[in-house]
């Protein structure tokens, strides 16, 4: 059993998928199925044995913010109810938090280079978070976006030379997949909310930014990843069952995610 739990494939796919599915299936009646990505991500971090907060490295800050995001999402859903202003406000908030994540790297770079890097990461996180959170009332589109934000980021990070961040991304994708599976079966009874969209987008955006700053994921891959929450807005067969809509939305999301991986692969072969 121990050997099984130490298997990186189990840690970043089966375990987070199961954890996400259990949480989503248990909590969807109280509109908290959106905690699935947080549960899956938490399971992966736990199994990989990466819990620890000293020293507070960039990777640990990613874990902290990825676990804080769903808490804020629950508050937004239950206490405040997301409005039109919620996505950009949360985008700016986590964009600013991303600067804290990469601060230890920024302070070691020349001022101009650091400013450019900080601005780029801020804009990327803002875009991914705001665009994904604005899907809060569309569970199928949000689930598809979360699935491929996780898988695209994870596969890209592996190619970009960070297996740990890759495992985190893939685990996030697997957990979002469990949410999407439930949404495919139960349709509109499954609610995404800011809980799901914030948990999925914050973790994915920070993992991708981390893979660029700490490893070799090219910035062009980040641009492709930012297109994922836009791609799922393309027209869906609205009168078809939820599972068909989910497949179509996932195909839309697959294109930029695959593009991000292809760009990472191309960069790895040429740089």
């Amino acid at each position, binding site marked *: 059993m121990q050997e099984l739990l130490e298997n990186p494939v189990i840690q970043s796919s089966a375990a987070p998928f199961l954890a996400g599915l259990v949480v989503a299936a248990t909590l969807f009646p109280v509109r908290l199925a959106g905690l699935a990505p947080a549960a899956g991500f938490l399971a992966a971090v736990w199994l990989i044995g990466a819990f620890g907060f000293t*020293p507070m490295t960039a*990777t640990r800050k990613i874990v902290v913010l990825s676990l804080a995001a769903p808490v804020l999402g629950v508050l937004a859903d239950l206490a405040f109810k997301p409005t039109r202003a919620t996505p950009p406000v949360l985008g700016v908030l986590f964009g600013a938090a991303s600067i804290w994540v990469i601060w230890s790297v920024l302070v*070691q770079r020349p001022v101009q280079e650091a400013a450019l890097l900080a601005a780029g990461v801020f804009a990327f996180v803002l875009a991914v978070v705001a665009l994904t959170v604005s899907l809060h009332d569309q569970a199928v589109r949000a689930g598809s976006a979360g699935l491929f934000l996780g898988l695209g980021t994870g596969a890209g990070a592996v190619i970009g*030379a*960070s297996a740990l961040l890759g495992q985190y991304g893939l685990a996030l994708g697997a957990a979002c997949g469990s949410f999407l599976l439930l949404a495919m079966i139960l349709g509109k009874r499954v609610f995404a909310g800011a809980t799901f969209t914030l948990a999925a987008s914050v973790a994915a955006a920070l993992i991708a930014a981390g893979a660029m*700053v*700490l490893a070799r994921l090219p910035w062009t891959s980040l641009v492709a990843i930012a297109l994922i929450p836009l791609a799922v807005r393309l027209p869906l067969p609205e009168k078809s069952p939820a599972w068909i809509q989910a497949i179509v939305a996932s195909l839309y999301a697959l294109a930029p995610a695959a593009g991000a991986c292809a760009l990472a692969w191309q960069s*790895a072969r040429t740089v």
Partner: protein
Amino acid sequence: MRKTLLAGMLLAACPLAAHAQAETYKVDPIHSFPHFGVDHFGVSTIWGRFDKMNGTFTIDRAGKKAAVELTIETASVTTGDNDKGSRPRSRDEHLRQADFFNTAEFPRMTYKSTNVKFNGDAPSEIEGQLTLLGVTKPVNIKLDRWVCREHPMNKRAMCGGDGSGSFKRTDFGMKFGVPAIGDEVRLKINFEGYKE
């Protein structure tokens, strides 16, 4: 008055006399390298080294005291696999990323002695603190060889030797690949330094 002045001068001279015993050596970076070995799948030991190490060591033979301070550039890690060929990355590239040495965030690791044991008038073991990935833990280095002599070519006074030790990388938060890639890191350092 004269006696007081003499006593004062003698007192003032004592620390200088003691200080004069201590010799400081600057590490010669082209003849000093820390090597590390890690178990690979229980089959063999992969050895690597850091190409850039700087620092100083001080020795007071009469007082049997010594101190060492070393700084290692983590991005200078090499294991002989620099060419990625058709792969997305080489092993050395991977070692520089967040899974291992995380050189973007931690470009340097340091070693500072806290105590040096002597065998006769030669240092035999260094007790010190290694700071790696922002974590500081005690690591001891046994000196397998210690030689001081005049450099045969440039005639400068030099000391050097070989040291060895070990530590667990997970103690420093480097958990990737354990246990397939060993936790225990074997350390071998060859060093030479010129007297300042």
